[in-house]
């Protein structure tokens, strides 16, 4: 058992983590590359950079949007996102792992905060999941991954909380720890290939939108030729 845990903590972690990093970099490059191409093709290169930038900031720190509409849902969603980002990165136990293995360390969350934030994240993911399942609108929109993700994301948080706070038998502890690591590793692997990819490309959205309306010049004849519609009446 311990060997398997060590394997998960060592090589498997490194592998899945790299898959995630490279997967995300790949998507980021593809996205930016597509935008650069589109910009090159655009007949008019005068983009509303400033307004796109402002909107991007407004969505990255969506204070304005919370007050404006659907305050409860928005607040839960924002807290959920904060927890997802902050806890794994700034948890003392995680930082210590980085320190012993790679030799780098950074600021960490105080123990109590980490606990509260973990519980809050769990509560939020349950709330979001229920919200999705109970509202007719969301139900029709939802795909499998939309239900699976909150559950999958909940796992490492719940198991992490247990490891840190609940006294269990050593074998039980190993099992919980294993679940903790494996679920995180599953997340790493799937993250770049599903909707969670928005964590890296979402900041580009407002620019994509502005740019997408800047069509390439003179496409009429080209499309007509490809479709063999030259000279055809309207």
């Amino acid at each position, binding site marked *: 058992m311990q060997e398997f845990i060590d394997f998960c903590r060592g090589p498997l972690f490194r592998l899945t983590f790299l898959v995630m990093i490279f997967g995300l970099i790949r998507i980021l490059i593809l996205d930016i590359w597509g935008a650069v191409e589109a910009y090159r093709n655009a007949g*008019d290169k005068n983009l509303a950079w400033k307004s796109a930038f402002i909107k991007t900031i407004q969505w990255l720190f969506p204070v304005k949007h919370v007050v404006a*509409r659907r305050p409860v849902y928005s607040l839960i969603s924002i807290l959920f996102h904060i927890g997802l980002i902050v806890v794994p990165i700034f948890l003392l136990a995680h930082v210590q792992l980085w320190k012993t293995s790679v030799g780098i360390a950074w600021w960490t969350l105080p123990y109590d905060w980490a606990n509260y934030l973990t519980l809050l994240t769990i509560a939020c993911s349950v709330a979001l999941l229920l919200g999705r399942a109970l509202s007719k609108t969301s139900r*029709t*929109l939802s795909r499998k991954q939309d239900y699976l993700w909150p559950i999958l994301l909940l796992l490492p948080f719940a198991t992490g909380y247990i490891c840190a706070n609940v006294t269990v038998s050593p074998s039980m502890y190993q099992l919980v720890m294993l679940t903790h690591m494996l679920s995180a590793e599953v997340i790493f692997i799937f993250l770049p290939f599903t909707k969670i990819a928005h964590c890296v490309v979402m900041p580009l959205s407002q620019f*994509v939108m502005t740019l*997408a309306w*800047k069509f*390439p*010049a003179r496409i009429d004849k080209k*499309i007509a030729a490809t479709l063999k519609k030259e000279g055809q009446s309207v």
Partner: protein
Amino acid sequence: MRNSQITEQERQKAFESKKKAEVVERQHLHVRYHIEDMDVSDRPKRFLTAFAAILRHTNYRFALEHFIRISAKCGRCAVQCPIYTATGDVCDIPCYRSELLLSVYRRHFTLGGMLKGRLLGSGYLTDEMIDEMADTFWNCTACRRCTMECPVGIDHALITHLGRFILSEIGIAPRALVVSTREQLEGKTGNTSAIPLPALIDTLEFLEEDMKEEKGVDIKFPMDVQNAEYLFTPAVSDFLMEAETLMGIAAVFTATGGSWTISTEYFDAINYGLFYNDRILERVILKLYGQAERLNTPKILIGECGHASRSAKQYVPVHCGGKDAKPVFNILEYTYDMLKSGKLKLDPSVITERVTYHDPCNLARLGWIVDKPREIIKAFCKNYVEMTPTKEENICCGGGGGIVSIDEVRSYRTIIGGKAKADQIRATGAKILIAPCANCKKQLRELVEDQGIDCEVVGLHDLIYKAIIFE
């Protein structure tokens, strides 16, 4: 926006189809708008061929790639859509509608989708899916409110725009738009309302006489003046239905000594291409630009019309040389400048009724023309009230995206499309509703009529005409 759905009775009336069963049968298509007869064979294959050709020569692919990566299906857009708020129908959720096209893209144009589709033997585009797109893409009024509210940033209006483009390439587009456009680009009169030139000249002379009588001043509609500063082009329907708006504009130019001209070769700024086909959009732009070149006017000025202004403003630079292209303005910008420079004087005692202002989506959504008309109005209308929400967040009149020109869907437009707008207008208690857009005005007049609201719908220059002071 009030969250109020239509009643069952209203629904039946709104969705009542005025089409003959045999036409629906012949065309294999269940949509409420009329369509010209087209090739009905192997639609899915032709749809995909058109889609591929469009992807090849345009910029849509990178946007679609981005959208399929980030789509989180949170449903936040639903509450923003006036259509969904009224119908509560799943197919009207912006994100659902976008998914119709995104799923075709994913399945047929991405490697993963193609492999998965092959392996499972599933997901191939079907006639039913095309039916659904043909129906729901034309429920949307292209108001772009949903786009404003998408946290990850999906442009649903762009996807609908593309969906309509592809559909039109296989012959599915509202007849009303296609027929007008054909007249505009290939017909004898060369404009969407089929107004012959002699009739136009008659009308304008008649209006000039009218204005002389009413104002005691010589106000002219200059035609084919070489080297004038502005080539003025309104939505051509204004010549038939919005004489007062045009008189107001002519009066402003006369009072301020502006240099402008109308072209007799081509005098229609309507661009239905924006609503259904980028190729048409391009051709109309080139036609308009050709007149500015012929008359050697350095600037292009569009009348009170949202979509005509936006399409010229956005696509003249795209197709006519980027930053070197002649700049495009909307008439509200000119009038505002004149007011600020003190050349235009308005009498604040003429309009006493309560007035309110409707922002045309195509002018306001992106923040292009928002405060200028308000400042003009406040300069002479003392009893002015705002609607809520307003400005960039305004609610569509319910006729956007070309729907207003489809007469057979009037009940849909005034019961569903304009429902939220009607509530808004009622809440202001205004007696005059200013809407500086030919499309909005037509829709709003039908809306107040069908919904029994006591309010007159006018253009901004209609009121300016009444209040203008000649010195």
